[in-house]
């Protein structure tokens, strides 16, 4: 068999793929904020919680960071219905990605909390700051600065992670690529275009995050 590359044939899928890319970004965005919220709660539980809260948070993190997101979604989508809990594929994917990323963000945020040093706080207290001022002017900016690079990094990995949705028939970039392939059999051309779209999406994300970092902290810090 002689395979000839025919990129011309797949140009008609391009608008479709671009729309899919937008959906991928939307999924990443929604899941990211959900995961960040979970991460915040989880990190606070680990940092300030009682014995049992800490145990629960630790168990959550251990379970979701030590198993693949793909299998977690398989479980949510195929196994939970047997207990009467039914989700659409998009719901299952969003829940899966969010819970999975929430575990990792818990760890990231916890390390940010740990980076606040006692003596900085003492110094601020000596300067006569109230508890609230301390949090507002010292702790939050410090944590934000420390955490911005790893969190941006995580966001970019999450953009790539949304490709898992395609496995469940969601019409994101990956899903549309799979559909288009079923129709046209131009797999390599399609996947190459898709790969480039993912590269473009993450570069876009990197640039936006760098701009945000520049605005907030006055220096470019994100690493990917």
């Amino acid at each position: 068999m002689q395979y000839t590359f025919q990129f011309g044939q797949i140009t008609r899928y391009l608008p479709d793929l671009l729309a899919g890319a937008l959906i991928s970004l939307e999924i990443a965005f929604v899941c990211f904020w959900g995961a960040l919220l979970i991460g915040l709660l989880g990190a606070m539980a680990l940092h300030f919680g009682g014995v049992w809260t800490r145990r629960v948070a630790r168990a959550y993190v251990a379970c979701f960071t030590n198993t693949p997101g793909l299998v977690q979604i398989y479980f949510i989508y195929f196994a939970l219905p047997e207990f009467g809990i039914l989700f659409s594929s998009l719901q299952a994917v969003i829940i899966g990605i969010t819970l999975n990323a929430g575990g990792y963000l818990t760890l990231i945020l916890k390390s940010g909390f740990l980076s606040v040093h006692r003596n900085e706080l003492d110094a601020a207290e000596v300067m006569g700051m109230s508890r609230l001022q301390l949090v507002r002017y010292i702790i939050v900016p410090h944590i934000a600065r420390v955490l911005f690079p790893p969190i941006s990094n995580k966001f970019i990995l999450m953009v790539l992670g949304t490709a898992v949705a395609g496995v469940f028939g969601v019409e994101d970039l990956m899903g549309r690529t799979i559909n288009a392939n079923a129709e046209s059999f131009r797999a390599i051309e399609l996947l190459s275009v898709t790969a480039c779209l993912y590269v473009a999406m993450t570069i876009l994300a990197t640039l936006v995050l760098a701009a945000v970092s520049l605005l907030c902290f006055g220096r470019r810090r994100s690493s990917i």
Partner: protein
Amino acid sequence: MWARLADEAPRFFTYYNGIFLLQAMGATLLLSLGGCLAGSFFGLLLVLLRKTKGALFLVPRALAWGFVEFFRRVPPLVVLLLAFFASNLVKMDVSLFLVALVALTFVATAFMAEIIRAGIEGVHPNQWDSAATMNFGYLRTMLTIILPQAWKIILPPAFSFFLLFVKDTAFASQLGTLELTYAGKVLTSRGFTAVLSYGSILVLYFALSYPLARFGAWLEDRLAPSGNH
């Protein structure tokens, strides 16, 4: 539901299924270790190219950079599928396991290259100066002075990457490579309930990954204070 689970359990937890799952787990471990080790090797080669100086290596340097940037920004699933369809083009009979291993090695190479590069840049630049004034060549400086100091910086993030990578190998199931996740699909298609099949897959991944994660945390603790950089 619970009744059905109880009913099915004896049929599920059989010697035969156990061996099947253990073999699949072995394949997952092999994909992870193989991909990560090969990725470390090729990643190191890319870094050696990238850290060269002078016009002579301009093109290889740019290619190495492009490779790393590209494969860090493409989902592993896309790389796996690309490798799968590309392997259909060559008329050789390659196993799905090998296809998955090669694809995952590409991914690991890109990420490891970045980790190794950061480690090398973490070594104080005056070490390069010293070596240069003593007429050390580029490779000799790298191998005898820089890398022996960089590995302490490289190891913790490399291990963290390895842990993430174990979970990325799950996507190999989409090609039909028999590894842990695919084994779960096989079991459901044999009529076992998804709760038991995917549940046990999750447990097995956990059994693989959790001890590694603990070891990684210990490793980081060990290396952090003693690193004299």
